[in-house]
């Protein structure tokens, strides 16, 4: 069994939280590794949500959710500039009609002010229609500091910046066992599922099946371990010996609408929230689409992301009460996400838990129930976790830490003059591969050779928006697949869509390759 060197810190989970912790920890002189069970950083909750930066008014005063959300909201411009991802402080409205709803909104406003959320106001119908012309409602709570961002770009940015500052990323590494050794270090056993990665194939039985499944075990050791496993937080906590956390999944389905609808929705429109759930809302995305959702279904299967018919019908019907522009002819895709919620024995949803239990699992930072507003609060959550570590160990600053990260320059977002100049500098920017989202060959090449070494089709998709448009890859996916084969010297059967086992092609039509 192959054994990696001793790490100061191993972070389990490379999502938004794990990557925020990795990035913030790389400010210190520490040898850090991230173990991610998927093949990229945003396959689960981090990439499957509403992508809204919350104001922090919806959470009980005094909770970590309220405090860290407000902090995260305030630092989002700075983060987006440092890390080069799109963020827009577009505001948001919670729309109501009845007296009862007005009371709830007034209560929410007061709570928000106590939480430190600024600029909140109750607005009348006229003002509401100035802000969002088509919305249906008599009044609203307006939160000017709410916003939207690209959750893929944000997570990738955090991870790439961490990586640039020395953090090692390991994909396809699911932690299956944790042992605390006598010397106080942790021994983590991980399982690799994937196949078809050059150099990783163990099985010799590849003749009959072009996509052999092999499992390989590997061990990692570290002085500190961080449980940032998201949906897997309960399992990892148990492995650490911290028992008793009950985690349930809240599954939400969404419909994505064509970009033509984006112009009709300048900011997210929510109904009046209940105690436990934000309600089905319509949200403008940073790239100009609109998402409709989510419902909230309690689930125990954390790997099923199917969207049922009833759910799509319900979302469209329900959200049409708020905003009248939902038409089936504008549907381009649907998706779902699962939030890991920590609940008590009565099923009541609890606050974020970020802890170190010295008596049970010393040197283990345990993060439980990091759900919404985890996207907004990711960096404050990371800093909170690191402060717990600092109370126990002195950390030396890393003088070489660089907070800046540059993403892939997007052709579609440039002016005509900028486009012209960019093509002169790099002719690959003149070759449009994805027509719908206007993604060029240069962007795709940069994405294929991304610093984290992700090699899936969705890896390119999340980094460039290719295949995210209305034709859903009908025009570009063959070119992308071919470029991945050529650039990464893969066989066609080794190219994966997203997950382990998600092969795209079964082989060649003819053995001689004329293409």
């Amino acid at each position, binding site marked *: 069994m192959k054994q990696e060197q001793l790490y100061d810190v191993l972070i389990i989970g490379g999502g938004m939280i794990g990557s925020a912790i990795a990035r913030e920890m790389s400010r210190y002189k520490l040898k850090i590794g991230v173990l991610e069970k998927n093949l990229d950083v945003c396959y689960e909750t981090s990439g499957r949500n509403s992508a809204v930066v919350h104001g922090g008014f919806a959470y009980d005063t005094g909770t970590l959710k309220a405090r860290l959300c407000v902090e995260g909201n305030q630092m989002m411009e700075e983060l987006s500039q440092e890390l080069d991802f799109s963020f827009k402080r577009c505001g948001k409205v919670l729309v109501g009609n009845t007296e009862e709803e007005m009371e709830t909104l007034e209560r929410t406003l007061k709570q928000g002010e106590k939480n430190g959320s600024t600029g909140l106001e109750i607005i009348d119908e006229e003002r509401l229609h100035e802000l969002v012309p088509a919305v249906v409602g008599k009044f609203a709570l307006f939160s000017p500091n709410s916003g939207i961002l690209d959750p893929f770009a944000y997570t990738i940015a955090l991870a790439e910046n961490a990586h640039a500052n020395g953090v090692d990323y390991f994909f396809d590494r699911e932690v299956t066992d944790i042992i605390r050794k006598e010397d106080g270090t942790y021994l983590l056993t991980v399982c690799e599922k994937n196949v078809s990665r050059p150099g990783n194939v163990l099985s010799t039985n590849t003749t009959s099946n072009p996509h052999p499944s092999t499992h390989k075990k590997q061990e990692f050791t570290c002085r500190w371990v961080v449980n940032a496993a998201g949906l897997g937080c309960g399992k990892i906590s148990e492995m650490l010996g911290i028992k008793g956390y009950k985690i349930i999944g809240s599954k939400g389905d969404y419909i994505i609408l064509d970009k033509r609808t984006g112009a009709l929705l300048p900011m997210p429109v929510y109904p009046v929230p209940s105690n436990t759930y934000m309600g089905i809302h319509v949200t403008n995305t940073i790239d100009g689409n609109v998402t409709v959702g989510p419902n909230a279904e309690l689930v125990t299967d954390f790997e*099923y992301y199917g969207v049922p018919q009833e759910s799509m019908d319900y979302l469209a019907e329900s959200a049409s009460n708020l905003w009248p522009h939902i038409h089936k002819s504008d549907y381009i895709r*649907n998706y779902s996400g699962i939030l890991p919620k920590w609940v008590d024995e009565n099923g009541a949803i609890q606050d974020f838990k970020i802890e170190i239990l010295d008596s049970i699992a010393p040197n283990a930072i345990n993060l439980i129930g990091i759900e919404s507003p985890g996207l907004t609060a990711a960096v404050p959550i990371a800093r909170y976790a690191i402060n717990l570590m600092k109370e126990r160990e002195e950390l030396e600053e890393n003088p070489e830490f660089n907070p800046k990260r540059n993403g892939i320059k997007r052709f579609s977002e440039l002016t005509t003059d900028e486009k*012209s100049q960019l093509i002169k500098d790099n002719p690959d920017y003149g070759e449009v591969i994805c027509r719908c989202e206007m993604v060029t060959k240069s962007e795709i090449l940069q994405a294929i050779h991304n610093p984290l070494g992700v090699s899936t089709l969705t890896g390119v998709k999340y980094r460039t928006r290719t295949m995210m448009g209305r034709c859903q890859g009908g025009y570009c996916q*063959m070119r992308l697949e071919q470029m991945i084969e050529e650039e990464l010297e893969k066989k066609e059967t080794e190219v994966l*869509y997203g997950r382990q086992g998600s092969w795209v092609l079964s082989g060649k039509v003819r053995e001689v390759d004329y293409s």
Partner: protein
Amino acid sequence: MKKVDAIIIGGGPAGLAAAIELHKNGITDILILEREKQMGGILRQCIHDGFGLTRFKTTLSGPEYAQRFIDEVIKLYIPFKTDTTVLEIADDQTYSDDQANSNNQTKSANQPNTYNKIITAVSKDGLIQYQAKAVILTMGCRERTRGALAIPGERPAGVFTAGVAQAYMNLYNRMPGKEIVILGSGDIGMIMARRFTLEGAHVQAVLEIQPVPSGLPRNIQQCLNDYEIPLYLNHTVTEIHGNARLTGVTVAKVDEHLKPIDGTQQYNSCDTLILSVGLIPENELSIDAGVLLDQRTKGAIIDEHFQTNVEGLFAAGNVLHVHDLVDFVSMEAEKLAESAAVYIKEGKLPNCSIEIKTDHNIGHTIPQKISGNQDVNLSLRVKSLLKNCKIVICQNGVEIASRKMKKALPAEMIYIPIKANKIKTMDYLEVKVEC
């Protein structure tokens, strides 16, 4: 900025035919802009035969059919630029000739500018802008996707539109899978059923939600029946399974409202789902240029000159409405070129103010507006299968043209000629079905 009489966007069958016909009509200052490496459009991947029966009275493969036009374009020295993507068409009256071309001293500043279309395109050579008198929109169409159809279930790899599967197999030498279910009896879907079978994959079935096939009868015979591939009408996929690669689909029978009938659901194990569920004209550039679309065709609203509501912008082929046969695409584009040539020479075309309305049996008509001064060949589709019916075109209650049909299928475009001398007033025409 370069000046051109006519810019043709898209070098597929429509664009190529339009270019050649413009040239024949005396317009030689043409530029075809094509985003792919080669011209020919979707025909490049259609390696089956059956093209050209109407146009050339012989059966050709897609590439052969396209090559006839490409050879002609080359012979006529019509300029084309491949690997070039158009970003924008702008209608700009503010550009004067002087601004655009300071060497041109012959025209006065107050003369209206006829090169009033600005086309922005990119290629490896850089960002280029052209000024054109007329723009011919021949961008073709794209396929409806799983997301547009909103098929419930998971989102594994292995769900392809028929055109994507066809491109993988015929242009890239790549097999999309081995155990195939095909949803939709569109022509490409049936052609892919045969193609997969010929390449050793197993096609379990073709499913069609409607009570009638949506593709041509000849394809049902030649692509399905000849290979014993079953076609299930009134059936659809109600759920997609698999979180990595497709593991199977749930199939159900549907009722007359196309809703799945409870209890008929059946799980089918397969690794590939092919969708042939319709084509949508690719009009993103047109919309941005201000072109109004017909919500029924998803193509531009045009008059008998194939001119859109934006003067100088013309559309034909699958970007206008989806055709059954490429032969008709070429012929439509040739008709377009005749009137575009007049427009380029004379600066305007006769006004078309007679609207064409339809009853509930008719899906749409092309054109939607006529002048009444010239004979027109009206194309239309019925919405559902009709037997022993008569399609009648009336003005003020008086029949001016009609066609009797034993069987009218939505899959088959219907053509009815209208004589100008029958049109007596400027009132609208009505197209209706009598059974």
